[in-house]
């Protein structure tokens, strides 16, 4: 590999990207195996699906704004909520987050690419075509029976509703295939990331000197490797049921509907950690840089993340309290779920410890990170409430649960995705995102988020079930739902500011320079955007903050480690 680098440098100097005709440039993106381009394509694709699935959510909120609104039919509502939920998890959350890891991990470990670049491209295209299948179901879902259109079975698709007898047409088949393909693609990415972290680190970067983000990337990749296969296996079984007449989840032939729930949630709960650990990883890089302090408790942070991943494998049945498990089962899963709060608490204290006494700079990435901290704390608290089985019996399948998981998914994960975009956009494009529009984006989105999802907790406490397309007036739900729907307008306005900001910056943004935030990890040591080969000479590392050492030769980190 090292032998070919002169060749690659010469090559990339020769091909002047900007002068290529548009088709030629598109071709370059299609055939690329470069981890940075693939990472950006994941993020870009994920953002497009974010807008589409967001519009679907907005349509649902429009229908729910007033009682008996009658804007969309019940079947349409069911399809919207299924496709929205599925898309947000598999087409938005996972690709954006793995896209960032794809982009950042090789740069942060001082490597020129991932371990298997072609596998990486394979995973991306698998993901993209899988994603398109989900939306293609709107056209192809009718099938020969002329039934249905898009899938309407909910994102966890409980059996036997998904069996041929109850779900006719092809909508559920598209749902299965879409998830199967995207998760095989994600598994490929995870194998690639894990191998790269073990085998591609630059000289001097021992495991103890890796940035925390890279540690968390390893933990997440491991988690993906063990929780995506159960999902794929369950989808394969369902596919066999639907096409070959097998009976895995066919209750009429003795099959079990509960088995599907177990298989799904064995994946489904850890999936939350697959999504939230990369968000933690971004916080671990951003908070120290904007507090001008090293991260508080590096090894504790890493250990807590490993513990979280481990515990998350043993809590899945807290999604199944209402099934009627044995008391021992309820007790076990309630207790194991509460255990999660220990490593989570440790992490929150460590982030606060990092900020404590630091010279905090409230730039946009830091603002989103602080929002994340507060909201994640609240989401964790409602989570602990739901871990109490009797409380859950009362509130499961109500809007309290919807509010709880959107607090995690938006309040924590989407907020950190935005933080990461503002933080690394300058590296990827060479341009800064605007500060003023960024502030508009942050405040509008924050206000809208709280208007929508704070209120929905109370809708749930008052007994509003989830997955209903309308409700009766005069039950104490009217005002709550109206406020929640108005919040969506604020969120949408925030997203609009973000889009304008991105387009403006790409056209005429302030040049970023190599290291606009005065940061410490290796990606900031190369140019913005980095050349195809990342580093002309592979870096040599002596501490956890190689760039600090470079900028402060009088007081390098390695003296203290």
């Amino acid at each position: 590999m090292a032998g070919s680098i002169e060749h690659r440098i010469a090559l990339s100097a020769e091909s002047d990207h900007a002068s290529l005709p548009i088709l030629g440039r598109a071709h370059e993106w299609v055939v690329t195996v470069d981890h940075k381009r693939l990472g950006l394509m994941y993020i870009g694709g994920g953002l497009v699906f974010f807008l589409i699935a967001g519009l679907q959510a907005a349509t649902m909120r429009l229908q729910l704004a007033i009682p008996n609104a009658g804007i969309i039919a019940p079947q349409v509502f069911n399809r919207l909520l299924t496709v929205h939920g599925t898309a947000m998890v598999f087409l938005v959350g996972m690709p954006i987050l793995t896209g960032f890891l794809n982009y950042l991990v090789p740069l942060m470990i001082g490597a020129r690419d991932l371990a298997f670049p072609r596998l990486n491209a394979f995973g991306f295209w698998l993901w993209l075509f899988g994603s398109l299948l989900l939306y293609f179901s709107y056209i192809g879902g009718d099938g020969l029976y002329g039934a249905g259109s898009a899938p309407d079975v909910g994102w966890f698709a409980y059996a036997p509703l998904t069996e041929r007898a109850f779900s006719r047409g092809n909508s559920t088949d598209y749902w299965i295939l879409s998830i199967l393909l995207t998760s095989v693609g994600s598994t490929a990415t995870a194998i690639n990331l894990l191998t790269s972290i073990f085998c591609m680190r630059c000289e001097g970067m021992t495991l103890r000197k890796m940035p925390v983000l890279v540690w968390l990337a390893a933990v997440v990749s491991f988690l993906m490797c063990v929780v995506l296969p159960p999902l794929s296996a369950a989808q394969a079984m369902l596919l066999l049921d639907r096409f070959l007449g097998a009976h895995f989840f066919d209750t009429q032939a003795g099959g079990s509907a509960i088995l599907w729930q177990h298989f799904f949630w064995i994946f489904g709960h850890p999936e939350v950690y697959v999504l939230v650990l990369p968000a933690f990883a971004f916080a671990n890089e951003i908070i120290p840089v904007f507090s001008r302090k090293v991260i508080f408790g590096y090894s504790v942070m890493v250990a807590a993340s490993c513990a979280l991943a481990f515990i998350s494998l043993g809590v899945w049945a807290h999604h199944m309290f209402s099934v009627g498990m044995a008391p021992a089962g309820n007790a076990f899963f309630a207790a194991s779920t509460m255990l999660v709060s220990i490593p989570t608490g440790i992490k929150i204290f460590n982030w606060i410890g990092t900020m404590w006494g630091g010279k905090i700079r409230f730039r946009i990435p830091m603002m989103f990170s602080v929002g994340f901290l507060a909201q994640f704390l609240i989401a964790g608290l409602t989570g602990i409430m739901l871990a109490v089985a009797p409380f859950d019996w009362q509130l499961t399948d109500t809007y309290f649960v919807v509010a709880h998981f959107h607090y995690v998914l938006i309040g924590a994960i989407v907020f950190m995705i935005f933080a990461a975009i503002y933080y690394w956009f300058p590296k990827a494009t060479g341009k800064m995102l605007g500060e003023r529009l960024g502030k508009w984006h942050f405040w509008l989105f924050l206000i809208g988020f709280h208007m929508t999802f704070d209120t929905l907790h109370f809708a749930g406490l008052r007994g509003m079930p989830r997955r209903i397309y309308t409700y009766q007036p005069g039950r104490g739900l009217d005002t709550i739902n109206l406020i929640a729907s108005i919040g969506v307008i604020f969120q949408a306005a925030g997203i609009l500011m973000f889009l304008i900001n991105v387009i403006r910056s790409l056209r005429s943004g302030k040049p970023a320079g190599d290291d606009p935030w005065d940061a410490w990890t290796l990606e900031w040591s190369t140019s913005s955007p980095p050349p195809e080969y990342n580093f002309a000479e592979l870096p040599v590392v002596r501490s956890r903050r190689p760039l600090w050492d470079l900028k402060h030769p009088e007081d390098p980190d390695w003296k203290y480690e």
Partner: protein
Amino acid sequence: MSAGAAISGASAYSAGPVETTTLPSRGRVGILVLILTESVFFSIFVAAYVFYIGKNLSGPLPKDVLAPPIVNTICLLSSSITIVLAMRALQAGSIRAFGIWWLATLALGIEFMIGTAMEWRRLIYIDHLTIRTNLFGTTYYTLVGLHALHVTIGLILILLVMIFTMMGYMNRRHAERTDVLSWYWHFVDAVWVVVFITVYVVGR
């Protein structure tokens, strides 16, 4: 554009100790992680099999139609030994011996697939057990079939290496890649032990 030159070993920044580590090979780590994922994938099918033991609403039942495929099992397990011998020969540089052991592995694997095919033929045409007959049929064909699929993939790769060997392309430099393939083969054999115990011992 600095492009990272400043932080490399060649620059003025060269003070301080550098901890060196030797990194493992990509192929080996990659296959180990793949084996990890595949193990989880298989264990879900095993779980489904075990969960549905004795829950059939109709026959045929495992105890009526299944006989442990002893010869088949011996063949597949001994192919793990022949592939080790093949790898030893390759590392010692003896391509001829490598070819012979490799061919033996291929033959044993093919024998296993023929045995499975005959078992399935008997079950389908004589005992009238298909994937849609009952829960036993559903779980049996998927678990054994999933394993057979992995054997088939392994056999195709082994055949490819066999062709390269016969065309004279094989030499000691390919030992590592071939070894990675042999790890996959060992994994497939190990899975068979689990499948055998689940289907033919516990399940009967």
